[in-house]
């Protein structure tokens, strides 16, 4: 038997060999042709056009076409955005059409330390526009619309402390004032009627959040949350604040930015570290250390800073311990002390306030206003509740309860709310039991505050 009978295979070999060759070529082409190379060529053409000297021209012509990436080990991110966005650091590209536009205002957030996606979100490792911008299936973090970019500041900075993020601060203020915490937990503080909000910014889109505030049951069928009435700028602000709640735990350097030296932060530290145990402010406090009201007149800021670093070094024999404050914390405390003569600052330390005023803070802290209205004036709807389908106002609560009864009511809550129509589903909102969350002293202050709500000289007549 000779080769003759296998000759018929030669054609097949040729055809299949060519097919494999074509497929390999196709695979190579798809691998080799990447849209970002076009953007790089566009950039190089623009650089060549702008070149003023032959040297610059040569330099531009010799720019290699290659992938750019910012590796951020601490953040566990690799951002390849600059592969297309080549001119982010070149101000002369200001206003240039994307992807070659300049990125303004990055002095304090250098790209090699922060990359891009930590603020803008999206998919840093990707190298095609759609994938990188994250608007693809199976990617949870699409780019944040520029309108809401301040939400990202909240990952590292306290919302209220950042002058560059007024919308974020406004959002937080709204969150606290409106009383979202009455039903929702954030950072472990709040009620349990609605879902926790710690990661809401990573789970929900801006559109969803906006819808949710305007008409909650439209996106969450059966939701008992009352629709919120916000002005247009305010709804953006509160959505933005929600978007900032990503639950991301940023490491080291980034987390340290949480403390921006400011009066607010100083006041928080002052309260938290218990300075008032030894020092007197506004007539309250301990007698071990000096009175601090006018400390700003006596000491220079440098002295204070040194004192926070090591009390003994500027005040030999001092019994004040070394707290091990970070530089930022020491600076914040210094700021606070320098402003202590300002009455407003002093009075805003909770331990220095009168009980009803402290109670107002408690009312605010736990979001009571979310259900009972600002200053307990009521008016918040609760579908099918016997009390006129509304959550009761608290203005005259002092007439129906003793202080001990009211305290017990707050601690135990009331799970079952009487229905107006027994045929319909029971009212969605109820009084949570605050016993596990609220501190005992806070409850006392809160009760004092609630009793103080009754307008002077008014009586219901019973």
């Amino acid at each position, binding site marked *: 038997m000779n080769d003759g009978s296998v000759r018929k295979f030669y054609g097949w070999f040729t055809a299949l060999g060519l097919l494999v060759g074509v497929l390999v070529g196709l695979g190579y082409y798809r691998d080799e042709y990447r849209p970002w190379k076009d953007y790089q060529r566009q950039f190089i053409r623009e650089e060549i056009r702008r070149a003023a000297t032959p040297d610059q021209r040569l330099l531009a012509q010799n720019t290699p076409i290659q992938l750019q990436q910012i590796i951020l080990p601490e953040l566990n991110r690799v951002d390849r955005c600059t592969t297309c966005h080549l001119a982010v650091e070149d101000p002369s590209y200001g206003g240039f059409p994307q992807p070659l536009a300049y990125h303004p205002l990055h002095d304090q957030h250098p790209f090699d330390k922060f990359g891009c996606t930590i603020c803008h979100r999206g998919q840093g490792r*990707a190298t095609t526009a759609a994938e990188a911008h994250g608007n693809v299936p199976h990617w949870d973090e699409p780019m944040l619309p520029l309108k809401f970019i301040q939400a990202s500041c909240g990952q590292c900075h306290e919302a209220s402390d950042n002058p560059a993020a007024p919308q974020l601060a406004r959002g937080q203020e709204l969150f606290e004032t409106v009383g979202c915490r009455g039903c929702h937990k954030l950072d472990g503080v709040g009620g349990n009627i609605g879902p926790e909000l710690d990661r809401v910014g990573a789970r929900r*889109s801006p559109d969803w959040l906006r819808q949710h505030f305007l008409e909650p049951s439209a996106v969450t069928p059966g939701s008992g949350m009352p629709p919120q009435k916000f002005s247009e700028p305010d709804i953006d602000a509160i959505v933005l604040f929600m978007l900032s709640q990503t639950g991301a735990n940023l490491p080291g350097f980034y987390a340290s930015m949480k403390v921006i030296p400011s009066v607010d932060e100083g006041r928080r530290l002052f309260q938290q570290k218990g300075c008032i145990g030894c020092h007197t402010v506004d007539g309250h406090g301990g007698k071990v250390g000096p009175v601090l009201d006018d400390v700003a007149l006596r000491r220079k800021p440098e002295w204070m800073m040194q004192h926070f670093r090591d009390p003994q070094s500027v005040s030999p024999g001092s019994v004040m311990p070394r707290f091990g404050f970070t530089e930022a914390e020491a600076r914040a405390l210094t700021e606070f002390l320098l402003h202590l003569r300002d009455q407003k600052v002093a009075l805003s330390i909770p331990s220095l306030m009168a009980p009803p005023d402290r109670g107002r803070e408690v009312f605010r802290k736990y979001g009571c206003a979310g259900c009972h209205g600002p200053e307990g004036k009521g008016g918040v709807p609760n579908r099918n509740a016997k009390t006129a389908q509304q959550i009761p106002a608290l203005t005259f609560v002092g007439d129906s309860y003793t202080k001990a009864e009211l305290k017990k009511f707050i601690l135990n809550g009331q799970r079952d709310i009487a229905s107006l129509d027994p045929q319909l589903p029971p009212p969605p909102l109820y009084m949570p039991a605050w016993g596990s969350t609220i501190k005992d002293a806070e409850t006392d202050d809160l009760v004092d505050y609630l009793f103080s709500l009754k307008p002077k000289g008014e009586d219901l007549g019973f």
Partner: protein
Amino acid sequence: MKTPLPKRIWGWFARTGVGKSIFRVGLPQSNLERSQAMVSSFLLHVQPAKVNRHSLRASYSLGLGLISLYLFFILIGTGVLLMFYYVPSTTQAYDRMKDLQFVVSAGLVIRNMHRWAAHLMVLFVMLHMCRVFYTGAYKHPREFNWVIGVLLFLTTLGLSFTGYLLPWDQLAFWAITVGTNIAGYAPFIGPKLKFLMLGGNVVGQEALTRFYALHVIVLPAAAGLMVAVHLWRVRKDGGLSRPETVGGSVQTMPQGQLPTNKSYGLMELARGTTPQVGRDPDDEVFSWPHLIFRELLLFLLVIAFVLFLAVFWNAPLEEMANAIHPPNPAKAPWYFLGLQELVSYSAFWGGVVVPALLVTALALLPYLDRGRRGTGRWFARERAMANTIFSVCLAVAVALTIIGTVFRGPNWSWVVPWRTPPAITEGR
């Protein structure tokens, strides 16, 4: 007739000193050289110098075993390349998948090839088993080779299943969670078995490490060894099975009564049955080129098909694995979806009894079905009973798999694929 150029180049090279030292026999010109080409080559000598015409018929074997073997080769090749980039760590594995897609040269195509070849291998090993069953090819003297085949089938499933976890995306995480949960339903040993597989009670870093070690060392080595034994036994049992009428594949030779007109090595006569040695059937052709050409052609075909899939369709990659966000429904890999469907009726019966019975029945098949008739022919009439039973089991398995794959939606409820199910608002 003019000699084709590649053949001339080859012929020239094979005649040079270097060529001779490598190939020993150049391009075979005579029947003697055709035999020598097979016997003297390490790579080729696992195959006989001459092969029965029946074995070359594509309509008989369909090349299914060979296709499975080629897919295994492709998987080893692409798998090694992937190993250069892969890190079996829960924090890095997923990122490495993204890097393969976006920055590694040809990374995506290679991953696609690996993925599609893996699915195809499971499919073709199954088809190969069906072929062997329907042609009665597991019958004497090939009983144990069938058992090795069953073990190879299980190893293939194991390879695919362990590989499924490695991308560390949602698909991987939940498929393995579901798959190992099914294993956990076994009585007594189930929970221990699951713990052993996962190195814990849930899928995590320990599971990833174990699956990786199994996937890249243990199972491929086992599969490679068993493939070698599988092929070697095919050879020793006289090549592919064929009907009794096409020249008995083996002959029984009474011990001690060796033919005196020829001399044989002891190795060929170590057993009572031997390959065709006593006769010199006209029905055989030289393996070179008749077998080798067909094998090479089939290899090209398989490569072309896998490349075609890999160039045009990307392997799935979902969100990074997230233990607190189970997809609904969470599904096992497709070849276990029949099982998962059964489990949805009864965890014990579907997850334990049925698969255990099936595997046992498969492994014991050649010892249960001991009739010698009907070997080497498709759907032999003598085997109508066996074929019917097998077909029914197969049909049920396929139906269950199809139901589990396309007709099951959220909460394993019945859905019709051509109608979109009510959306689960996840809020994006």
